[in-house]
């Protein structure tokens, strides 16, 4: 008989907690879905007011406007990549719906899922799709790469994610002028940080481009 693999072993109490989290996530999702359906059938629409007015800067006379760009950052020194040895990649949370993936002995890949150029609803649809695929395969953990600044869905599903602003929201960024080089460096760092085995892309937009 083979020894139980040490990697992935979880104490029984923790394993039970993960199982319970996974189960309750599914039950809560179903309850919310039923509640929304019933409310819709009863003609009850949520009355939500979204407050998104910009705030003007408050500063003494001759202050800058909020759209005034920051100064260009100094040019990088002419030296090669000085990153040095990378810390070990982070182990991202597998998401609430597959909580038991953490602590299980099976191999799992960490996959980058680029979801750019979507609004919050579009991102939600992709997250739901990836979550159901994950529940079927149970052999990967996604890390979402997004340019949408509404992050709630990732918290709802318990997934890790990274963000870089889309072209329309880079105004005033100190590296706006040489964004491609800056973003390429950020993408490399993110890939190493999570140990992404591959990046799959949804939509036309590319993360950071």
């Amino acid at each position, binding site marked *: 008989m083979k020894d139980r693999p040490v990697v992935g072993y979880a104490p029984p109490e923790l394993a039970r907690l993960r199982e319970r989290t996974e189960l309750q996530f599914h039950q809560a999702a179903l309850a919310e879905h039923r509640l929304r359906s019933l409310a819709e059938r009863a003609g009850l629409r949520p*009355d*939500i007011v979204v407050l998104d007015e910009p705030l003007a800067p*408050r500063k003494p006379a001759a202050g800058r406007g909020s759209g005034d760009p920051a100064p260009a950052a*100094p040019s990088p020194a002419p030296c*090669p990549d000085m990153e040095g040895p990378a810390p070990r990649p982070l182990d991202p949370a597998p998401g609430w719906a597959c909580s038991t993936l953490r602590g299980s002995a099976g191999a799992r890949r960490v996959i980058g899922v680029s979801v750019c150029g979507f609004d919050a609803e579009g991102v939600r649809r992709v997250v739901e799709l990836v979550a159901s695929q994950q529940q079927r395969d149970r052999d990967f953990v996604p890390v979402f790469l997004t340019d949408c600044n509404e992050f709630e869905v990732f918290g709802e599903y318990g997934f890790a994610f990274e963000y870089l602003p889309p072209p329309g*929201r880079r105004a005033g960024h*100190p590296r706006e002028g040489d964004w491609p080089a800056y973003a390429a460096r950020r993408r490399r760092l993110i890939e190493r940080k999570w140990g992404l085995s591959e990046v799959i892309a949804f939509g036309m937009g590319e993360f950071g481009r």
Partner: protein
Amino acid sequence: MTADPTTSSRSKHRGGPPPGPVGGTHRDPALESAPPWAEADVAFLCDLRASGGTAWRLEAEARIQAQSGWRTAFIPAFVPEGGAPGRDGLSVDGPAAACLKEGVAFLLDPHRTMLRTRLLVLHGAETLFDGLLKGSAEPVPRILADRVVAVVGGSGRDRPPLRDVLRRDALLRSLFGPSLSWSATDAGVLEELRGAFPALGTEPEPWLPSTWLEPGAPFRPGRRLPVVGCIPVPGAAAAGPPAFPGALCRALVAEGAAAPAGWERIEAGEMDPVKFVASLDFLVHLQDGLPSGMPLHAVAQALVRGVPTILPPSLESLFGPGPLYLCATEMPGAVGRLQADPAAYRRTCLATARHARASIGPEIHRARLARLTGRTPGPLRGAARPRPKRRPVLFMSANEVGLGHLTRLLAVARRCPDGVAPVFACLGQGVRIVEQVGFPAEFIPTHSLAGCDPADWNAWLERQLDDMLDGLGVAAVVHDGSTLFDGLVRAVGRHRDCRLVWLRRAMWRATQANGPLLARQRFCDLVIEPGDIAQSMDGGITVGQRHLAHEVAPIRLLDPDELPGREAAAARLGLDPGRPAVLIQLGAGTNRDVVGMIGAVLEALAAHPEIQPVIAEWATAPPAPDLWPGVKRLRGFPFGRWFNAFDFTVSAAGYNAFHEILDFGLPALFLPNGHPSMDDQAGRAAFAQAQGCAFHLAEADRVALPTLVGALLEPKVRRLMRDNCRRLALPNGAGQAASAIASLVSRGISG
């Protein structure tokens, strides 16, 4: 690595190819395919991973050369086959890496590029090319140098064994040509070389230390409490540390060294030594032993910067005039006298700098360069990278529970003067809000958000911040949060020209064991404590540290003139201004049962059908199911802007909501969040009730909700509360905080 940017096609025609590979059968295909040439005025060939004395000497000399307009090449002493310099951290680290990042020097890949230089300096020559001497194959850089000096490092306890000197001399001549001479950083070692090897060509004088100057004021402005620092020498026993009454005592501790008992300890990896000495009002050396390596160079930096430096009398022969020479028991008295007399302190600073610049300043190295190359270096100019007029400042918030930290940072950033360009790093879900307010935002998910190990996460936080500080040219990081993360401290500590500011609100709960968190303020250049109207209730640990903080009035995001009047506010929210409206804002719900409490509040309000209840939903919380159909919900930021639409609020008592409510005079029923990790919200709520500004209700006493709601519907009660709020209202301190930050970043690290 591709060809060095300094590579010149013109230089291909200057001189022939340098000597080929030596020792063994190594053949470098790059040689056969005519590698490009680079040019430098001075090249250093040494172990660029080192962090000892050689590394600091290398940095000092490279910076002096850069400030003199000379071009410097760094050549790793040995690069593993197939690996380029700098990759995988095999060849460049510590001070050398900092020079490369700043463009003070360029890195030469000896596998791919040949070099022509006026002067080649082999630092740590006593160990160079050991492999070749032992007969093994080792790639050799191809360098054409007009002049070569092999410098032996170390002195005293670190004096190197002088092995194979003549064989090594022959090898170096075969590699780099006959114009080679030897020197040593220590006069005694140079004498020993001359005595033991009379045939060896030696320099007329030792390779004395020479320290560069940073532009900026030569002395520090006075502080309420002086900071006395020391850098213990590894392996040496610390003498009994004297007490420095009324001073903060900090030790920068390298591996193997011991901090004096009772001193604040900063590990060598947590702060760059130059940054450390620049933060001091006094540097003392408490050991009789000779400082060497990093401590020696830190003393030199302190001296040329004019930081009053107190050394034991035994070191007078080494450092000469400039430092004060006193035994340990006399040091506290000298510090006290100078601190009490600003004019004497200033005179001491200036005298220290004047003497030091003559004995260990940049002219020592510049004269050496002139002698060795026959050329006079250009006049000294300022730092290698000129500072832009507007400098990016990174506002970093750790909002994992609510939006309190982020809101304070936004309040300050909105009021920063022109010299500061705010950029945000959100560790929680606040990016949309930052962008809504009009600032660029980066996102770094916290370990709790990403569900990963905190230690691993800190290592990546350090890496990511390091990248941002370099990439954005950040002048300061302003952190609002109770934890100064390891990764933050280490990344900022390594960047000499980047300050660390802690925007730290008070009212920490007395029951929390927060001593270690608070002690991390030793890493900060500035701690700003925003005032709290309920300050008299504060029994937390920060009270005893208030004298070390820059106190400002309570910080608010909004000023009163930014709030629309009742009619306009009600119209925006779709409320009837003629009926009472109540705002329920109980927090993000990440660490308490907000849903249950909202239910209880709505139940209490249901007895008054004329009331229009409105639920505030935190912009960072997942959208909740519509549990109360027909009740209006607000999503977005900031809620305070619409206060005039409401008659009263049922609210948590976090810092920002509490101060907005009292300053804008909105009658309130406070239901403080009592989670053990939170600040003392109950203290604030109790204060407001005692002052007649609001009611305070503990979560467990919900049964009293209907009574208190009934009281709040009385116009007389609300009027009284408003009057009492006006009596307590304070001006907004966000502008004061912004000015303090701007003032800090406008000074160089010498300021």
